[in-house]
């Protein structure tokens, strides 16, 4: 399932090469560069900010330990995302967090007109709806909707066929449309 993706940014490859030889400063630059992406991927997978911060650090540590196995045919960012996904998975298994759709807060018609509270509720509802998705569909949705990876990049990152990417994405979107139907009608 490996796929050749375009490599751009030779400065990044230089940093990776230096980091491989033990240059921690070079690795630190890579961490700073990709921190936001990794943190957000883990956060959207886990839903817990504290857990996400810790898991993101763990993801970079795993990346450091496995730098020797990184192949330049992959985008470094996508390779990191794969590690981040696995770390998020491990973190969720250890925390045993499982949110059922029935536990989602219902939108009440008795709410006041305060926009800020309503928006906060909506955001929370969306977040929980995403967390209620199965892991494999959630990961594809996050990489597509928030990280804007192409189907081929998602397939290479998660090492799944292209058709599986499409089917999982369709499933996730259909589930979210059902769960967030009231917000979609309003919009």
């Amino acid at each position, binding site marked *: 399932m490996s796929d050749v993706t375009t490599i751009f940014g030779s400065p990044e490859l230089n940093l990776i090469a230096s980091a491989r030889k033990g240059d921690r400063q070079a690795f*630190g630059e890579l961490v700073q560069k990709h921190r936001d992406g990794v943190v957000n991927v883990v956060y959207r997978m886990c839903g817990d900010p504290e857990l996400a911060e810790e898991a993101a650090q763990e993801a970079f540590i795993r990346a450091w*330990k496995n730098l*020797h196995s990184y192949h330049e045919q992959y985008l470094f960012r996508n390779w990191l995302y794969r590690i981040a996904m*696995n770390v998020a998975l491990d973190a969720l298994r250890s925390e045993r967090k499982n949110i059922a759709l029935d536990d989602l807060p219902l939108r009440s018609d008795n709410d006041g007109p305060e926009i800020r509270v309503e928006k906060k509720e909506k955001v929370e509802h969306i977040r929980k709806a995403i967390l209620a998705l199965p892991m494999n569909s959630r*990961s594809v949705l996050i990489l597509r909707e928030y990280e804007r990876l192409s*189907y081929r990049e998602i397939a290479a990152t998660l090492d799944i066929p292209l058709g599986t990417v*499409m089917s999982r*994405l369709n499933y996730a979107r259909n589930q979210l449309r059902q769960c967030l139907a009231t917000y979609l009608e309003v919009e």
Partner: protein
Amino acid sequence: MNQHVMEWLAAYFDGELHGMRLQKVEEHLWTCSACQLELEQLQGLSTLLKDCPPMTTHMSHEQFAAQVGLRLPRSTPEHNGLTWQRGVNIGWLSIPLSIILGWALSQTASLIISVIQGLGVNLSWMSWFSSLFQWINSYSFWSLIDLDFWDTMRDAVPWLDWGEMLVHTIAPYLTITVVTAISLWCWMVCWWVLHQRKRQQIHPVL
């Protein structure tokens, strides 16, 4: 036709369609209100998902990188690729090279011996090679079709004498070449299987 386009609407919305399929979907969308509605729903969902903001942390990028740096193990990533593993990899790669080298040496040796014998020179160590080739010949596939089959056919087809002589001459070389080819093929199959297993270990599937 509607269902077919519905199937591709998500890919169309994500900009993943190209060529004829893209053209067909675009043409269909001009005329089909149901698919247009479906596309609007996809757009609405994507916009709604964007309302969920990214995570904000109190830590700066430098602080985060510094914390990661403190937690990094002392060993370098290069050292993490164990030396013995590299030795195993080198040894593994040397197998096909050894097979090819052995084949080349055997072919060269037989050629040299043939030339020397052709010149009428008879050296004591050459008898060892002749015995080896006779032993290979005796266990080669070609010897299985000797004896009765050839005796029967030889009377019917006189030129088979020449064919039999040819078979006996080239049998050892063909046997060595076939065994070399099979060995290389087996090595390639083993390498591919191990490579796939290693990929699965490094990149586990979600």
